[in-house]
């Protein structure tokens, strides 16, 4: 195998020496006439914009539910708010990967979903009634993880109602962070509904500043850092060897597996393109292969393996780490296999250079 690949490399060099054409992409496909514009339009019009619009309707309901509870702190309002928090958190998993444009500028994902929450500083901010949620230092005091803590961190619904119900500081804070989630989401959604859609779709170049290159970097980085490491790697200690179940997402509501699968399914759907061209079709068009196998098929198969493995996981990934962490590590290993296919093989096929690297040297 090694021998063969070495011959291929050599043969490639030889041919390159004969060719007068300068392949500045470094071994990529210089005759790539895939319609990038159509792919970008499909992404924007059929996936990204509708996903943000759906999510925005959830964040509007979330803000309304928080205000209802503040005005009328009863059990039924608390239950409605809890339910809406879960619905919105799930829907957030469909847009979290789109950290480009306005979302990138606003640090959108960090404000909505940095976990674990910093409980003590959150409590002291609430007690003082003074806070500036636009500060980066407040990432760990807002967003869905803060809602998770406030709505589920005090125990039963009765205990939660008792804690939050009669206390304006708490209800003000609940409203403030719900408003902020909704406001940031409105801003990002509006930018896609406005000029940014065309800016994104028309930037069809194949250089590192083209939309496909930039988005692909964000998309793959999301899979590696946010989905693989954030949801599975950190709680299981896959990289450090020290499990830390307290790093699970939705620590208190205990819905981390549902969030993980929602994020994963959204990621997979995006890859497949649903109603139009996406990465799957692009790789098919290029005829990309890895070790003699069709690359697109390898990626799809690996996605299936990830989903199949997830059947072994507890609904609460924190409990899974505590009861049998090997299953979490297995999940990590399956995700990492997809990282390699996406980050090395797919990105090479697309002649996209990775603008972030992972290996932590000394």
């Amino acid at each position, binding site marked *: 195998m090694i*021998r063969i690949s*070495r011959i291929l490399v050599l043969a490639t060099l030889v041919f390159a*020496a004969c060719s007068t054409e300068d392949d500045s992409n*470094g071994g990529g496909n210089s005759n790539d006439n895939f319609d990038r514009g159509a792919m970008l339009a499909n992404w924007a019009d059929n996936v990204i914009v509708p996903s943000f619009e759906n999510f925005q309707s959830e964040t509007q309901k979330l803000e309304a539910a928080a205000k209802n509870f503040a005005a009328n702190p009863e059990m039924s309002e608390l239950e409605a708010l809890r339910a809406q928090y879960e619905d919105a958190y799930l829907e957030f998993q469909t847009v979290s990967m789109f950290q480009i444009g306005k979302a990138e500028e606003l640090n959108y994902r960090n404000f909505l979903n940095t976990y674990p929450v910093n409980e003590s500083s959150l409590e002291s901010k609430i007690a003082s009634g003074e806070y500036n949620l636009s500060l980066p230092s407040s990432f760990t005091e807002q967003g869905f993880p803060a809602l998770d803590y406030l709505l589920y961190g005090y125990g039963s619904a009765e205990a939660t109602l008792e804690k939050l119900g009669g206390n304006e500081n708490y209800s003000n804070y609940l409203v403030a962070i719900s408003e902020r989630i909704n406001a940031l989401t409105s801003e990002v959604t509006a930018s896609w509904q406005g000029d940014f859609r065309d800016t994104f779709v028309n930037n069809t170049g194949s250089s590192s500043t083209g939309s496909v290159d930039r988005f692909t970097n964000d998309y793959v980085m999301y899979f590696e850092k946010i989905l693989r490491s954030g949801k599975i790697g950190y709680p299981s200690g896959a990289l450090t060897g*020290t499990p830390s179940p307290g790093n699970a997402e939705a620590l208190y509501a205990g819905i981390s597996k549902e969030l993980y699968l929602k994020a994963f399914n959204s990621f997979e759907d995006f890859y497949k393109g649903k109603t139009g061209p996406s990465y799957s079709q692009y790789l098919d068009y290029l005829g990309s292969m890895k070790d003699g196998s069709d690359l697109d098929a390898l990626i799809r198969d690996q996605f299936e393996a990830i989903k199949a493995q997830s059947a072994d996981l507890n609904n609460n990934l924190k409990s899974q780490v505590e009861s049998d962490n090997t299953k979490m590590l297995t999940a990590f290993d399956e995700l990492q296999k997809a990282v390699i296919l996406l980050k*090395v093989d797919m990105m090479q096929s697309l002649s996209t250079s990775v603008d972030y690297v992972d290996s932590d*040297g000394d």
Partner: protein
Amino acid sequence: MRKLFYSAMIFGGLSLVSCSNDDDNIQVPGENEVVVPANYTFERDNSSTVYYGGQTTRLEMSKEITSNFLNFDGATEEMLLNMFANENSPFENAELNESSKSVKSKVAASNLYFSTNTVESSEIRNDFESWIAEQMTTVKANKDELAEAGKAGQIAQGTTARYVNGKGLEPNQAFAKSLIGGLLVDQILNNYLSQAVLDEGDNRMNNENDVTEEGKAYTTMEHKWDEAYGYLYGDPSIPANDPNSMLNESDDNLLFNYLGRVDADEDFAGIAESTYEAFKTGRAAIVAGDYELRDEQVEIIRENLSKVIAVRAVHYLQGGKDALNNQEYGAAFHELSEGFGFIYSLRFTHNPETGAPYLSKTQIDAYKQALLDGNGFWDVTPETLDSISEEIAAAFGFAVSEA
């Protein structure tokens, strides 16, 4: 066969290249003449580009951990576990406490073998922690009793007392010798010298265009290579640019030490020199942008360092067998404990022909099982030790008698 095949390709390549009029060299973009220096000295704009402080740090941590295994009065299980993970400022050397690095995080952590195999990686780290635990609980509790089959305690080797568990295994030797594979060999062969790491992202392009890391004199690829170098030659007692001048005289007690021991065996004389030459040549090839030459050196290093592990494994199994035949149990158990660690380390060797360890995990697990079955070293037979020795030596292409 391989050589023939290869030169045939070059020949074919050259004849094809003649279609071009301007140049008959296979000149890769960015490639310059390879200049291999006498010592491991590389500079850019008069600044050294060689740096491997992180490796030296981990080697020093390893040394402090292993030196505390027999400190029954001063050390505890918690303290050694803290040292392994570098938590709660456990080290005497304050610089180590301030470091963000730990030994544990790099055990069984190579890109090639473990990036999609964290399940096994976690099992291996557990083994290391279990040797710490066993030393500081079972063995420590019996440190003033005589060991016997099934019972931990002391056993004499000449005038030295060895401390063993109920199977006759010294957990400190198991830990130290397994670390040579689990940390050093794995990081060198399967991480830093792998194409996945050397060629990650834009490393090649940056290397060819002299794009250095921010605030540093080296390119990322140069640095990755030096990090591999540092795990072998990074002990502070080893001179940075001329390590072999201290061969068999340094304070290193991990891989460099055993490279020296194997080199001192006339059957393997020259292995230290050839390893050092390969490190220098590969590094010079990176400077010149000649990645094919670089990867040829990687193969040499992979073969040589893997062989060091195998030779020492067989050496200690045979030493253990001889001592058992003379009923010198203390000496035998000490040899077998070291041998066990080197067998454990076989899992991290790298056969350049296959891209995998020379022996499968299943085979290696079977050897460990055979050694520790029942009452372990108290029961093991010379036949078992011979058959394991034969299999290892055959896989690596040397004779048992040579080790």
